[in-house]
């Protein structure tokens, strides 16, 4: 069937901000879908609240809306744009749920918008657990025994029909939020009530427990002609009981015979046919291998995290093909992106092994429960390709960027080790290796972990080789064997008492270099032209290296998504690659994250799927015969390579030129002493700081600088890096629990400028001119990490004079650091004084947000500067100063607290957010209203609970009055209440738990009698601990929660707007008109 002519305009819903369970994969799928449809002549509209996406670029879609993702907004957009079709399956669960609601509420029918790819019935069947069970029954296949429950009564009835332990799953939640395993009625009550609350349709599922079964996934596709193919089979290393997003995954399936594999494949095709999906679909199986039993546990009628992984693992562009199928094309009509000659109707076959390992954010949260379960906690993932399990596994480990280059020793006492094996955490793989190292048998480890012996045996092989490396003389043969087992130079060096550099020299002298194979989807059977490669020591390196090409540049990506290094950097890398290609360069991309747009092989001239360690980057430079490298777009990952690469450049072995700002200058900005010296010479103010090598030292320095201070260790223990300390006790606690202070590992102390306004600036510099692209004023006070703050463009309280001074300091600093490309500077402003907190001569987190606000592709401009173009000519046609904005653009964070039990949701200098949204409108109130809506937390009326520290009390009088004038009622803890009453404000008193009186604040929250909380905690160590229970409860009950008075004031503006007007929805380009 040829593509449909009756469709012209197609709406694609994005997935919103990056959160746990929904990362960059949906930017990848949405962007592919849009490109794929435009290529066929359709017009696309993309709606997403996440500015750090390629899909919301105006070069990706015809019309872009950066608006909150909710029914109201989407209805307005549909009404205005009148699309013919809606693609529900490319924005994860968020888009699927919204599309389902739009259909359910008759909005799609009203405006004659057709659901493309998945119909309403399909979504219903796949997502409603009961309908799903019926469907699976109808095709005569087994699904887990399960019962839908709407209340605890039904739960108790259900559990009589299955035995403990049982699995609890809330319906329609993301990444398994709220699910858990209950071993007793008591457990069950707790998990079930939480689940019922969290499910948007107040429905949970009580299921048969399949703990310890193996888990397999199949990615399948179907077109409108009922042609079905399988793209990839995947095997989870972790057994059932661990969410597939939390599991290490291998592709293709390794331990299934052909009979078993074909059985599961046939069932997958049967299911996609029964669901009548047009496009991609993911089917998950639980398999009990001791007696060959299986259950179909989940079907995702959309592209997913797994399909992104399958696309990168096989080279088959699932999202791209799915989009074309959704508009009526059949598989044989869709060109094959790999061979460019044949069609998309074939099944990829691999001649390599792919392994994905999740990346967890636990380094940021020392108090979090690290166990990996049915609920996702990881923020991202790294993927590696190699010839064998061993090679891929060790590559994947170093691709995680957790400062480990393979199976390093795990310092853990015996009984804890056993517990790790039984109740896995993020350290599981390392603990398996450690157990084997300590002599545990493969059987024993497999028994404890319930992981297939096949995988344990592979780890055992790696561990066993350690002994040989330690004992035997490292000769050419042994080294080659080690490399084939995936050992990094670094680990070999450690085991043989040498340096990584020495190992590297030895490798080079023995010609032990990796070969690079193409990911061609067909195991070499056909001639393919995919510019997509992976390294392996099983293939000999190319004999004649490519001819040196002066116009070849390597871009180092940003690796797995983690807190502090999100999709923004991938966005910049994609722009860099596209810009280089347009300027006639060969853009070589190296990255290890399978979710991203940058690892779409269409983006760069050639893509290398490799870990981002020095060793792996050098291998790519060598094989490409390339000596130019761009490091300023990949976040900390790439910038950290600057000094080592520069050092290598000094030895004449390899002349590598780092394009853009030079390593020395980067160092001058990063090293506190050098930077402070620089600021002093430029007469720029900065907070006082000092360094301490002992506790006494730190105390003295702190007293000199004066409390409060921001402390950070140079050596991190247990992950707690930065903190604001208000009094001596806090300092003592910090040093004891978080930082090991010693001569080698000093603690840095900075004066914390309390109650200052923080400002972020992004600028471009070509050495001759500086272009200040964005001056962003934070709503939260300085001291809250800039990634966790709401920020506003243009600044909403700063005077023009202050802004000018900020710009002039930016210029001075950019020139002083010899910046070529990006520079980001953070300022604190207090009582008219401007302090520079830090300067980063690289792409910042806010680049996509600023780009979208001002309508200039900053990453593109930065790339052009790096390759020698001048700002003057680049900006000639555009205005040189900040554009005159008649609108307000706000960037807001999203937090993972709900998914991470045990974490205090209080904000501080350590970043905690996973993603961001952007909201744009004509006024501050409207924009902030949109920003809050994007996070789904807004009440126009109800009760505000106030509990503020003494110093803030005078400042809340006006706030309280405003809330009352909007019809809110107020409750407050005694201190706050008495103060407010004295100022004529009527309110009720609530008690803290410690007061043992009723009404207690937590009870009111549980009874849903509190709709907004304003809590400015006293930040002493003890007080912080007291407020924890309340904050945690607010998170779990999803009660809006404000910790800064400036945010409360912004909230007032939003309520004022919401009370008087309704939001308008405009495409991005209209705001700038």
């Amino acid at each position, binding site marked *: 069937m040829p593509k449909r002519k009756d469709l012209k305009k197609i709406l694609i819903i994005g997935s919103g901000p990056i959160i746990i369970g929904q990362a960059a994969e949906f930017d990848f799928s949405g962007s592919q879908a849009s490109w794929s449809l435009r290529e066929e002549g359709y017009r696309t509209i993309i709606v997403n609240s996440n500015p750090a996406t390629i899909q919301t670029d105006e070069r990706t879609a015809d019309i872009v809306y950066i608006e909150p993702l909710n029914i109201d907004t989407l209805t307005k957009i549909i009404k205005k744009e009148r699309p013919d079709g809606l693609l529900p399956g490319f924005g994860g669960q968020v888009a699927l749920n919204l599309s389902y609601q739009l259909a359910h509420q008759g909005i799609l029918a009203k405006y004659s918008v057709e659901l493309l790819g998945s119909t309403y019935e399909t979504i219903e069947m796949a997502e409603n657990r009961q309908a799903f069970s019926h469907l699976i029954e109808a095709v005569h296949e087994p699904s887990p025994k399960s019962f839908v429950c709407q209340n605890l009564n039904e739960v108790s009835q259900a559990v009589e029909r299955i035995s403990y332990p049982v699995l609890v799953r809330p319906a329609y939640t993301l990444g398994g939020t709220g699910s858990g395993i209950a071993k007793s009625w008591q457990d069950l009550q707790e998990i079930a009530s939480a689940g019922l609350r969290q499910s948007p349709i107040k429905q949970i599922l009580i299921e048969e427990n399949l703990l310890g079964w193996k888990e397999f996934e199949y990615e399948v596709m179907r077109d409108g*002609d*009922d*042609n*079905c*193919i*399988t793209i990839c089979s995947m095997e989870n290393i972790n057994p059932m009981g661990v969410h597939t997003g939390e599991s290490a995954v291998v592709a*293709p*399936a*390794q*331990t*299934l*015979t*052909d*009979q078993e*594999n*074909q059985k599961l*494949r*046939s069932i997958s*095709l049967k299911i996609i046919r029964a669901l009548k999906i047009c496009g991609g679909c993911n089917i998950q199986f639980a398999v009990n291998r001791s007696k060959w039993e299986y259950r179909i546990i989940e079907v995702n009628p959309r592209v997913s995290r797994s399909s992104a992984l399958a696309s990168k693992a096989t080279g088959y562009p699932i999202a791209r093909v799915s989009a074309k199928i959704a508009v009526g094309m*059949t*598989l*044989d009509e869709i060109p094959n992106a790999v061979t460019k000659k*044949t*069609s998309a*109707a*074939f*099944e*990829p*076959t*691999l*001649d*390599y*092994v792919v392994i994905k390992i999740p990346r967890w954010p636990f380094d940021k949260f020392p108090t979090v429960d690290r166990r990996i379960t049915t609920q996702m906690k990881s923020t991202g993932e790294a993927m590696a390709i190699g*010839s*064998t*399990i061993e090679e891929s596994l060790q590559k994947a480990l170093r691709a995680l960027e957790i400062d480990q280059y393979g199976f390093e020793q795990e310092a853990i006492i015996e009984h804890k080790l056993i517990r790790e094996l039984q109740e896995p955490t993020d350290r599981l793989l390392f603990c398996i290796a450690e157990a084997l190292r300590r002599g545990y048998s493969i059987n024993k480890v497999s028994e404890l972990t319930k992981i297939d*012996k*096949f995988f344990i*045996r592979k780890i055992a092989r790696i561990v066993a080789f350690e002994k040989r490396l330690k004992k035997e003389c490292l000769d050419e043969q042994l080294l080659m064997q080690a490399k084939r087992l995936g050992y990094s130079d670094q680990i070999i060096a450690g085991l043989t008492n040498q340096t990584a550099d020495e190992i590297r020299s030895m490798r080079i002298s023995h010609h032990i270099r990796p*070969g690079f*194979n193409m990911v061609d989807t*067909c*195991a*070499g*059977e*056909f*001639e393919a032209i995919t510019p997509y490669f992976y390294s392996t020591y*099983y*293939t*000999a390196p190319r004999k004649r290296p490519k001819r040196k090409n002066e116009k070849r540049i390597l871009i180092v990506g940003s690796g797995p998504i983690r807190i502090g290094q999100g999709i923004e950097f991938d966005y910049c890398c994609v722009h860099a690659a596209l810009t280089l290609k347009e300027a006639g360069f060969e853009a070589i991309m190296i990255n290890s994250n399978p979710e991203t747009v940058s690892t779409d092989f269409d983006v760069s001239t050639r893509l290398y799927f490799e870990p981002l360690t020095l060793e792996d980057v050098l291998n790519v430079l060598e094989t490409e015969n390339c000596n130019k490298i761009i490091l300023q777009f990949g976040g900390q990952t790439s910038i950290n390579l600057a000094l080592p690469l520069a050092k290598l450049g000094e030895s004449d072995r390899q002349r590598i030129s780092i394009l853009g700002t030079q390593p020395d200058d980067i160092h001058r900005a990063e090293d506190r002493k050098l930077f402070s010296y620089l600021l002093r010479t430029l007469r720029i103010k900065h907070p006082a700081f000092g360094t301490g090598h002992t506790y006494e030292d730190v105390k003295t320095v702190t007293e000199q600088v004066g409390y409060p201070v921001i402390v950070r260790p140079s050596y991190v223990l247990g992950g707690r890096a930065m903190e604001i300390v208000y009094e001596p006790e806090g300092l003592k606690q910090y040093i004891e629990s978080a930082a090991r202070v010693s001569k080698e590992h000093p603690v840095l102390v900075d004066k914390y400028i309390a109650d200052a306004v923080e400002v972020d600036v992004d600028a471009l510099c070509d050495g001759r001119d500086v272009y200040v692209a964005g001056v962003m004023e934070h709503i939260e006070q300085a001291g809250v990490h800039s990634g966790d703050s709401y920020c506003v463009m243009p600044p909403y309280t700063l005077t023009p004079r202050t802004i000018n001074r900020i710009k002039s300091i930016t210029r001075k600093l950019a020139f002083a650091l010899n910046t070529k490309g990006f520079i980001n500077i953070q300022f604190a402003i207090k009582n008219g004084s401007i302090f520079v907190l830090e300067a980063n001569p690289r792409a910042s987190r806010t680049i996509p947000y600023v780009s979208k606000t001002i309508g200039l592709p900053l990453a593109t401009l930065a790339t052009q500067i790096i390759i020698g173009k001048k700002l003057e000519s680049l900006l000639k046609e555009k205005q040189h100063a900040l554009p005159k904005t008649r609108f307000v653009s706000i960037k807001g964070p999203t937090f993972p607290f709900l998914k991470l039990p045990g974490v205090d949701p209080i904000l501080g200098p350590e970043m905690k957010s996973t993603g961001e949204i952007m909201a744009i409108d004509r006024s501050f109130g409207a924009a902030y209203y949109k920003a809050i809506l994007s996070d789904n937390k807004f009440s126009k009326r109800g009760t505000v609970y106030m509990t503020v520290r003494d110093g803030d009390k005078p400042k809340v009088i006006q706030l309280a009055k405003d809330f009352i004038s909007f019809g809110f009622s107020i409750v407050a803890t005694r201190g706050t209440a008495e103060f407010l009453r004295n100022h004529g404000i009527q309110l009720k008193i609530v008690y803290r738990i410690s007061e043992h009186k009723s009404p207690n604040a937590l009870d009111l929250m549980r009874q849903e009698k509190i709709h907004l909380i304003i809590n400015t905690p006293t930040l002493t160590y003890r007080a912080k601990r007291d407020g924890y229970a309340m904050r945690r409860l607010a998170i779990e009950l999803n009660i809006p929660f404000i910790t800064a008075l400036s945010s409360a004031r912004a909230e007032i503006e939003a309520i004022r707007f919401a009370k008087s007007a309704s939001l308008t929805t405009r495409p991005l380009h209209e705001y700038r008109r």
Partner: protein
Amino acid sequence: MSTAFLILEDGTLIKAKHAGVEKDVFGEIVFNTSMSGYEEAFTDPSYSGQILLMTYPLIGNYGIRKKNFESSKVQIRGLILKEPDFSAYRGMHLDKFLDLSAVSCLYNIDTRTLTLKIRKHGTMKAMIVARPSKIDYKALLQRIKQMPHPDTENLVSHVSCTRKIIHGRGPGRFVLIDCGVKRSILKQLIKYGTVIQLPFDTDIKTIDRLKPDGIVVSNGPGNPAHEAIMSTTAKTVEKLIDKYPIFGICLGHQILGLVLGFKTYKLTFGHRGSNHAVKHLRSQKIHITSQNHGYALRAKKNLDAEVTWVNVNDGTIEGIRHLNRPVFSVQFHPEAAPGPRDTEFLFREFSELAICQSAKI
């Protein structure tokens, strides 16, 4: 574990590790791209005369079990692997199996580079030199060049049964002309009736006496246009066309094609794998199939037959049917094993057709 060599007729010499029985073997080197199903592949009679290279690097992961065999013994002459797994905890270990079944296997070979070479040059004569005291490269190369290609032998005669074998006892009666049949074909047919397996050179009289409802011409190794096949199987099939419904599979399809006036030719490197998309021309439906063949049919005009299936990728003929008789064949393997089972329905269609036809008579 000892050092051994692989030498190809184009002069390529590769050093590798050796497993299995230490014997020198000569054959045609071919590659298979299936990611699972090595048990089935090793025992598939169509590989007779061939040294098999598996492109999937890890082989032996799930051990070896007899129940997954496609014939009573190992059929490949030699095996080329990247990273065998000799200690699977299910089934028999691969190395033990190689020993017991007297297969000479080379491993730790960069199979990808070798596959690319075969893709470019086409399948080649090759030799595994298992235990060289020293290697005389020139002499070996000379020897390989002089050795006749395995296809010049009547390979079918090595793998066909030598006497009548009866399977099952269902309502239908099918004669299976065994050119090297895979067990899975038998298993499929038995679902619908009694299967009488006959040697490849059985004459028409013997078949007539059995009063079959339909005839299946099986898969098998080698060149379909081999003189020994043309003078036996092909002759018989020619006479069968007017009498019985016929279903040809793989080599059986090629023989039927030759009988109906098509020509056969050798593909550069053949189709061997589990991911080949074919299109049924009448319904325009696509199916993923398992394939294992080195020869293909070339279309001709004005025949009594038409092309019914084509390969989506290279357009080669994947199926034909007689214009007026219930006679058809497919190049791919509807019985799968290894591979997808998307086209299993062909056995049902054939048996229904055959039983219907004979009811009419």
